Structures are given as structure tokens and as C-alpha cells.
């Protein structure tokens, strides 16, 4: 270990001339800079958060968790020093690279900006009004993104483990299909068997020979015959026997399903304004981050609906304005079709998140609830519905869809109401903590 900055005081080891000390510090833990970095972020948190929020609006859900470039206004960043006022008094200064000036020439004084006549020390002391750009790491970005939401301490246990049966290699077996025979292993077992038997036979022969030495003729002939038989047997041990055969063995083991898909369902009818969409987006992003942590890779499908449902890309999902009425059932039906067509099977973890302001007709609500309970829920790991009511009225009545969903029961179903950005994380935690209890 090459540690400790302690170098002070002592001369280097033996005072041999030309003794070089090259210490490899590349493996030292990084992060001395991290302290100062964190201090900087702490100090300019408000500015940085504003910038991070803007950045969030521009990003796709999949990129939310990545680090990235942030630019904050330069005010407040300057470290002031006392300086001279260059508009007062007189001064002389020397510059390099004269072209054709001769003594007595007058040169128009540059105005504004950095006075290039000043000596180099003047630079950087002025008020920095330009913006200051730098890169944030993934963790820093997430910390800011979830700042209102209290940064979630993402834990695996929040989700119940979904497991599926997988056949895994599990040692060797004596029985099996010919295709699984392991020739090398089998021959090795044969060699071992022959060595063992030969040793045992040799011992037996030795014993008999000793007996033979002190025996009478008749017994002696019999013994010699036995010895001879053993010798023959020893010479002709079979090269392979059935007991030597070894096969690859496969045992069923429980493995977590590794592939995950997340379906985002959102009502984009006229009543869903930007604020609601932003809340929806935050919820989806949060879910995405959780799932990504867990599964590594998560497919995301966007289904938007008005009276009709369609699968769209993310850009259109969040930003393409649509108007129209609201029918929820077609969206659920489309989700069902998509799952059946592309994500069926035991190794897909299907998560559905639905965001809506809850406006729907009574008939549609009933149909949706029934469809959800009977068709969709059995297919998915989890169905989360968040209700984003209009911020208007002071009294809040449960929305139509919410009331309809009263009918839905099931471990995999959860719903919550979100009114504000700060609601999202608690709601999220609640949604998934329930799983743990279940």
C-alpha cells in the first residue's frame, strides 16, 4: 500500500544518489474532489435545481436517470478581489507582438468587455456574468430530480421477487439422455474404477499367495487356481462399464425473471393540462428508474388515449396536443393486445402505470374496471393507477374512474391520488410498500 500523504520532514530513505521514488497512486480511492464538488452544488442548489428541472422537461424518460450537462447563471459565482479601476489614473503596460506602431502613435481604446490591455491578472476577477456550465453525475442529477420527493433509497425489496423455473447445470448424474453423455468424464471414471479394482485384486492375490506358501498340495492347487483366476480378471478388467457413465445433469432452479416492460397509459384528452402531464411524467420516470435498477433493461411502451387508444413514441406521448373525449376501456384493451402479442410468457415482468384525471363516463368506467379485473390483471405483475385531479375546486370528490375502480380487487392493483409534485414519492413508496406487506 502506498498511502499517506506524509512526506514531510524526512529525507528519502537511504540517501543513495539517484535513488528514485515513483509511487503509483492510480489505485488510490478517488473522490477528494467529490467533497468540494458537493459543496459547490450545495451552495448553488437553487440555481442548479432550476437548471436540472428544465433539463428534466427536455429529457426522455429513459434518460432522466443519466447525468448530464447543466448550465447555471454566473452571478454569485465570482470571487471578488479588490481591483483598480482602469478608468482612473494613468498607467503604462507592455504588450507583446508589436506590428507597426512607433512611439507617439495613438490607438483607439477598446470599449467594454475585457480590456485586453490589462495585465493577465485582471482577467477572472470581474463579475462573472456568463453562464457557468458543468456536468452532473447520475447520482447528483437524481438527487436534484427527486429533491422535492425526498430522494428514494431505492431498494430491491420494495418489489416482491417474481421467480420462474429455469433449468440450470447442476453437476453430473449417472442417468441421462445419450446426448448429455460426457465422454471425458466417463473415461475418467473408468480409469478410476480400474485403478481401484486392480489394487484390491492385487491385495487379494498377495493374501492367497501367502496362504499358498504354507498350504498342502490339494488346497494349494485350489488356491493356485483362484490366484490364476484373479490374475486373469485383473488383466482383463473392462475398459468401460455402465457404472462409469456420467451425464450432464440439469436441475430446475428458481430464477428471477429478467425482462421487464413498462406500459405507460395516459389520458391525453383536453382536460389533461401540462401540469397533469408533468406529474404523470414524473411518476412514469420514477417507475422507470426503479424498474431499471431492478432489471437493468426495461422496455417502455406508451399508450395514449382519448376516445380511441394508440401506441405512440415518447415525444408524441408527452408533447403532442390532442383533444377529444375520454374512453378508458380502449386503452386497456390495446394494452392487453400489446402484452399478448409481444410480452406474453413467464419471463416477462409486465408493469402498467396509468395516469389520468379520472374523467370518464359511468358506462366506460364499469367496462374498464371489469376488463381490468378479468383480463389485464392476471397478465401483469403490477398495475398502478394514479389519479391526478384538477387543482381547482376546494372540495375534492373522488373522480369517476376512481369510483369505478372501487370494483377492482387484487394484489397486483394499486391506486393513489397525486395532487402535487411532492406527493409523488410518498405515493410511490406507498404503492410499492404494500407489496412488501403482502
Amino acid at each position, binding site marked *: 500500500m502506498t498511502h499517506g500523504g*506524509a*512526506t*514531510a*520532514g524526512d*529525507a528519502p530513505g537511504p540517501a543513495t*544518489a*539517484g535513488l*528514485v*521514488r*515513483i*509511487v*503509483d497512486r492510480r489505485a*488510490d480511492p*478517488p473522490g*477528494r*474532489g467529490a*467533497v*468540494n*464538488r458537493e*459543496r*459547490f*452544488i*450545495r451552495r*448553488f442548489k437553487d440555481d442548479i435545481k432550476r437548471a436540472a428541472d428544465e433539463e428534466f422537461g427536455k429529457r426522455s424518460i429513459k434518460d432522466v436517470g443519466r447525468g448530464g450537462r447543466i448550465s447555471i447563471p454566473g452571478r454569485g*459565482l465570482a470571487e*471578488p*478581489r*479588490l*481591483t*483598480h*479601476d*482602469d*478608468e*482612473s*489614473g*494613468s*498607467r*503604462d*503596460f*507592455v*504588450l*507583446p*507582438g*508589436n*506590428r507597426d*506602431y*512607433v*512611439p*507617439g*502613435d*495613438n*490607438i483607439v*481604446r477598446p470599449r467594454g468587455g475585457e480590456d*485586453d490591455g490589462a*495585465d*493577465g491578472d485582471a*482577467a477572472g476577477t470581474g463579475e462573472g456574468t456568463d453562464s457557468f*456550465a*458543468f*456536468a452532473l453525475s447520475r447520482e447528483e442529477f437524481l438527487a436534484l430530480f427527486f429533491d422535492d420527493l425526498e430522494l428514494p433509497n431505492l431498494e430491491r425489496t420494495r418489489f416482491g421477487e417474481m421467480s420462474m423455473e429455469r433449468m440450470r447445470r447442476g453437476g453430473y448424474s449417472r442417468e441421462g439422455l445419450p446426448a448429455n453423455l460426457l465422454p471425458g468424464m466417463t473415461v475418467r471414471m473408468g480409469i478410476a474404477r480400474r485403478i481401484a479394482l486392480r489394487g484390491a485384486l492385487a491385495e487379494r492375490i498377495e493374501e492367497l499367495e501367502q496362504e499358498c506358501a504354507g498350504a498342502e498340495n490339494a488346497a494349494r492347487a485350489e488356491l493356485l487356481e483362484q490366484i490364476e483366476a484373479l490374475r486373469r480378471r485383473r488383466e482383463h478388467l473392462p475398459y468401460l462399464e455402465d457404472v462409469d457413465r456420467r451425464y450432464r445433469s440439469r436441475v430446475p432452479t428458481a430464477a428471477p425473471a429478467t425482462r421487464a416492460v413498462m406500459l405507460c397509459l395516459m389520458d391525453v384528452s383536453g382536460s389533461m393540462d401540462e401540469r397533469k402531464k408533468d406529474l404523470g411524467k414524473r411518476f412514469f420516470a420514477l417507475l422507470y428508474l426503479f424498474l431499471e435498477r431492478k432489471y437493468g433493461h426495461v422496455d417502455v411502451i406508451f399508450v395514449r388515449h382519448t376516445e380511441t387508444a394508440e401506441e405512440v413514441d415518447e415525444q408524441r406521448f408527452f408533447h403532442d396536443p390532442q383533444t377529444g373525449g375520454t374512453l378508458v376501456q380502449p386503452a386497456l384493451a390495446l394494452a392487453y393486445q400489446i402484452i399478448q402479442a409481444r410480452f406474453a410468457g413467464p419471463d416477462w415482468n409486465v408493469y402498467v402505470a396509468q395516469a389520468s384525471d379520472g374523467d370518464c363516463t359511468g358506462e366506460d368506467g364499469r367496462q374498464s374496471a371489469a376488463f381490468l379485473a378479468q383480463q389485464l390483471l392476471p397478465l401483469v405483475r403490477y398495475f398502478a393507477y394514479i389519479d391526478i385531479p384538477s387543482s381547482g375546486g376546494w372540495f375534492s370528490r373522488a373522480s369517476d374512474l376512481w369510483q369505478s375502480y372501487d370494483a377492482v380487487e387484487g394484489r397486483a392493483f394499486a391506486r393513489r391520488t397525486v395532487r402535487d409534485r411532492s406527493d409523488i414519492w410518498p405515493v410511490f413508496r406507498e404503492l410499492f410498500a404494500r407489496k412488501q406487506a403482502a
Partner: protein
Amino acid sequence: MMATTPPDIDAHRPWPKLLTRATVPMPRPGLPRRAEPIATGTEWTLGTLEKFDRAIAAHAGRLGLDTYPVQYELITASQMLDLCSTVGMPIHYPHWSFGKQLLSQEHGYRKGMTGLAYEIVINTNPAIAYLMETNTLALQVLVMAHAGYGHNAFFKTNYLFRQFTQADAILDYLQFARSFIQDCEMQYGWREVESVLDCCHALATYGVDRYRRPARLSVKRERARLNERLKFTEKHYNADFAHLHMHERDEPEPEAVSAFEPQENLLYFIEKSAPRLQPWQRELVRIVRKVSQYFYPQRLTKVANEGAATFWHYTLLNELYDAGEVDDGFMLEWIGNHGDVVAQPPFDARGYHGLNPYALGFSIFRDIRRICDVPTDEDRQWFPGLAGSPWQDAIQFAMTNFKDDSLIEQYLSPKVIRDMRLFMMHDGEDDRAHYNVRAIHNESGYMTVRQGLAAQYRSEAYIPTIVVARSGDDAERALLLQHRVESGRMLDAKSTETVLGYVKQLWKFDVVLEEIDADGTRLKIHRT
């Protein structure tokens, strides 16, 4: 390759006959050369670096370079970024301004806008020089010669460093400072600590003793002193009567107005006399002051220090080449980097950021050697003592006894002025719309340019001179600062206001800054 060539007529002209002068580096003729270079190509191992260090050390020893022992530390690019952000020190107390530095450098580096510093060397004993793992062999050797021998020798010989810094104590002191500041943060909250540090940083340039040799840094003594002081003052601390306790341990001097001597170490004064600072806040002031004091000689010797280091890497690497220890590819590579380092864009170019200390210093030191080796008549006239003397001694003398302004005043030769095409402009009150060219690189201008440039490197030229003139002699307990105005140059009103705000935060009572001219007439007054 040259080693096997027998000396013949071409020994005096080692380059092809068609060329009248070397366009690529050529070894000096007539020297014994190694048959094989120590290493070729761009790859290196610790073993090759050690061999190179031994070779450089041999040449340096032969040329009479006096250095501390060197310790090289191999680091990664991100570690280099960390180092750069804390002014090159491997240990430093935490502060947001270092984080700002780090973020902007990292961003620039990632975007490819800025390269990384090649070399960082720490003035300790043994000197620590950093080698970045991504550098090629030629660059590593360049850094070894530049930092490990050039800077190192300058640190060891220059009078300012000898007088003002204790090479062996700084890292320990910074360690102490860091843990102290962290303790303070735990105890008093980071906001409090940060605001005090911000104030001190703004005044860091006024925290040095310019003429007095500072007391030796000793962590042991520092700790003992601190314990005693904190114990005493915390026991007795009372915000309202704090100023009465101030001098109990010092010799009880009556603070008569007439006896007050102007003080230029503002931070020292604040540490000792600010009426309402908490003991730990005084300690913070002291830490910033001590660190600033450590860097004081470096501020004064940018040109001399970088010039000497650049001169020495140039000389030592050429020596390696002359001895056949490196090959031509090696030379071409580092000379490319060297050229970038000593480039001086003209004043009207886009990339002009003031005079490049590397370029200026290197030119001066190279010219000292030239004057010694092949003096012209002009040199004999300007440098009668230097022309024809042994260059090693001359360089050694220049490294030992000068700082930037005096080095320029003594050694800036007409040839360097001509080569860099230096000229002097005047910005006067009579004509604010124009700059007036006062002198250029001609016979009548050399002396003016030389003195003008030297004056430009005096710290008064870029750091306004502030002294503490009076304090606490009235019920208001105001602090009176004075700025001695020279040639009419007043303080910038905006930055002054901010900085006075910081002083007030430390002093806790009103702060007044008056600007006075040479006769003592008050020109302007700033109040908080």
C-alpha cells in the same frame, strides 16, 4: 545511429548538405553517444521512467543543479483534475470554490476545450512531482525534467522560497487545517464556516507578511497553541466583552491612537484584533492567512519560476539527446509540446491572455545563456559582467536572487525585447479615448520597455495597496483602511463594495476605506 559514425568532415555539419541550418533537432557534434537510446516509442514503464530519472539526474548534477530529492507520483487524469482544483495541493480544506474550479475544469476537459496541466509540483522536501498516466514517454520525461528538476531547483535555491516557505511543513499544516475546519463544520454548521472562509478568501492577498520572515509552521505547536487558546477563550467568551479579553495573553499594550502603526497584513490584524470574532473564527482567519503566506513567493515568481523550469527541461532534454539517450522521435514529440507551452500570441490575437510567463521566462533564461556563450557587441554593452562568463553560474545566480520584477529589470535584454516585439503603451487621464504608444523595441525604447515591464510585475501594479490605518479608537469601533493611490489609480467601486462587505462580516462593526494620495489628501471614501 550517430554513435557509429566516425568523426569526419560531416561531424561539424551533422545535417544534410542541402540545408544551411538544422530543421530538426540534431545532436551536438563530437560528443560520445550511447549506442542505443534508453527507450523508444511512446510506451513507458516504471522501470524506464526510473532509468530516465537517473539519466536526467546525472546531467543535472553535471550542470550544477541543486535540488531536493524528488518523489514522483503516478496519477490518473481524474486525480489530476482533483489536484488542479485545490491549487495543486494533495490535501486541502474543503471549500466550494475548489468545487467550482473542479467542475469547470472537468467540463472543459471532457469537451476537449482545455488540456490538463502537464505538471504539478509541490514545494516540499522531498519535492513531489505528479506524472499523469495518460502521458506518453516523451511527455513524462519532459515533466520529470521540468517539475522534478527545474521547479525543484528553483524552490530550493530562490531566496524568496528559502525565506518565506517551509517546504517540509506545508502538507502537515494543511492536514491540520482540514481536520480543524471539518470539526468546525460539525460544531458550528457549514454555513457559518463557509461564510467566514468566503470573507477570508476575498482578503487572502492581504494576509501576507511581505518583509518579515513568518514563523515556522509546526503542527505540534499549532495544536498546542490552539488548544490553549480555545480552552481559555471559550471559557471566558462573552460577545459583549470579547474585546476586553483580547489582549490578556499578549503584552498589555495600551492601544493609543498615536502609537498605532499602519499594518498591511489585514488578515493578521483581523485575527488578532477583530472585536467580536469567535475563537474558532479567528482560527479560520489564521489558516487562510498561513496558506496565503505559503503561496506568496509563488505569486511573486511566476515568470522566474516557470522560466527557469522551462529552461531546464529544454536544456536537460537536449543533453539527453546529445548523449544519445533519446531518439529523434522523442525530440520531435516533446518539442511540439514545448512549443505550445512557450507560445506567445501577439496582443491583438484572439488567443491573447496577457504575457505568457513561460514564454517570457524561457526567453530571458535562454538569452542569459546565449549572452554567456556567444555574446554580441550589444550584449557586452548591456551586460558587461555577464558576457562570456560561465553560463551555469549566471543561470544559478539568476535563479537564486530574483523575483519577477527584479529578474526582468536585471536581465530583459534588447534581443528578447526585439524577438517578442515588446512595446509599451500609456493609458492616461488626458486622453481616455486612446492608448498612446510610449516605447517600442528600438534603441531608445529598450530601457523604457524593460522598466515598464518590471513595474507591471510588481505586486502593487495589480493588487491595490491597502493598510489598516486605525481601529476601534472611538465608540463606533470602526476599522479604518487606507488605499495609497499611486498615479491616480483609484479602486474599482463595485468590487470594493463587495470586499468591504466581507471585511465588515469579520470585523462586525463599520469599515471605512479611504483613498489617499501621496500627500495624505483624502480623494475618496468608501463606507460599508
